């Protein structure tokens, strides 16, 4: 800041005050509307409850598809939606529950969907493939492994929660 006085002309002063007051009014008007519009981005996601999906003794080492329903609250609309998982026991007897949603662009994958690759998951949309453990086969469109459901076993029943990407476990 120089010590010299900077003369402000009448025109400049008016310009500044009018821009200031106008900007303040516009901001006061727009702020609530913008916050209103971006609300979905800022809403905390509700962690889904675990739901009973299958009996543990139904499970084999072969992936099987299980469907179950959850109560979904979609703003003002409540409904039941069906979720699915490919579930099997690994060689060291751990339960694996894979999401059927393809990591390329979200189609639904099938176990043994492609006769040429019987021991893999297959996505019909762009010929994406995954090994049995859900890891994507290199040089097919998907670039990540299938998501894995959180799971819990209580008294011989398998409960599943939300599907999460591999890194988040």
């Amino acid at each position, binding site marked *: 800041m120089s010590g010299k006085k900077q003369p402000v002309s009448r025109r400049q002063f008016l310009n500044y005050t009018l821009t200031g007051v106008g900007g303040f009014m516009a901001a006061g*008007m*727009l702020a*609530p*509307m913008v*916050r*209103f*519009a971006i*609300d979905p981005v*800022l809403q905390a996601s509700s962690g889904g409850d675990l739901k009973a999906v299958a009996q543990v003794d139904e499970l084999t080492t072969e992936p099987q598809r299980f469907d179950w329903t959850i109560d979904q609250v979609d*703003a*003002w*609309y409540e409904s039941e939606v069906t979720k699915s998982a490919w579930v099997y026991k690994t060689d060291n007897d751990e339960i694996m529950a894979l999401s059927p949603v393809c990591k390329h662009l979200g189609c639904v994958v099938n176990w043994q969907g492609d006769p040429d690759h019987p021991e893999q998951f297959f996505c019909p949309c762009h010929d994406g493939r995954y090994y049995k453990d859900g890891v994507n086969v290199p040089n097919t469109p998907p670039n990540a492994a299938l998501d894995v459901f959180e799971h819990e076993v209580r008294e011989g029943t398998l409960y599943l929660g939300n599907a999460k990407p591999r890194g988040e476990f």
Partner: protein
Amino acid sequence: MLQKVYDWIDDRVDITPLWRDIADHEVPEHVNPAHHFSAFVYCFGGLTFFVTVIQILSGMFLTMYYVPDIENAWRSVYYLQTEVAHGQIVRGMHHWGASVVIVMLFLHTLRVFFQGAYKKPRELNWMVGVMIFFIMLALGLTGYLLPWDNKAYFATQVTLEIAEGVPFIGEATKSLLGGDPEIVGAQTLTRFFAIHVFFLPAALFLLMGIHFIMIRKQGISGPL
């Protein structure tokens, strides 16, 4: 930076005369409240425009949540007002603004009337103004149904009965507006919605454009 962008564009398409023509003109002394305080009456046209902008903006944002369906309309309004951040403010702006805009419009009309500003050569603009007035009333009327609560429902029933009262074409008018000769329901709501957010605003923009172009052409009327 901004100046450079402006210059770059102006260099190519010469935009300066465009905005000068719209924005850069003198405010006559008799219209300036700094000279004669009573000149504040000239503000009502601008205030009407200001509130209209609020209505349009807040309406656009409300449409992000609102659904014009008899099962969900009320619930979507309830949701946006109680669950969405600032929903109460945004809905409040549109709700109260709808009344304020009519008040401003009325004050503006009073000014034009008592100053005799409607006289030759501005008769046409008075007529356009009257049409704007009716469009505004229609916006208030059609918007009133949209929350689909009891008040909205019975007010609309009355509206449609009034429409039915018109000689000869009454019944047809009622069906046309309400979507059904008898029921105030699903089709009434979708029609009122379409009229409220598409048809009337389109007409309003057109008329406001004409209104303002005529004001620029004719200038503001002289002192009393």
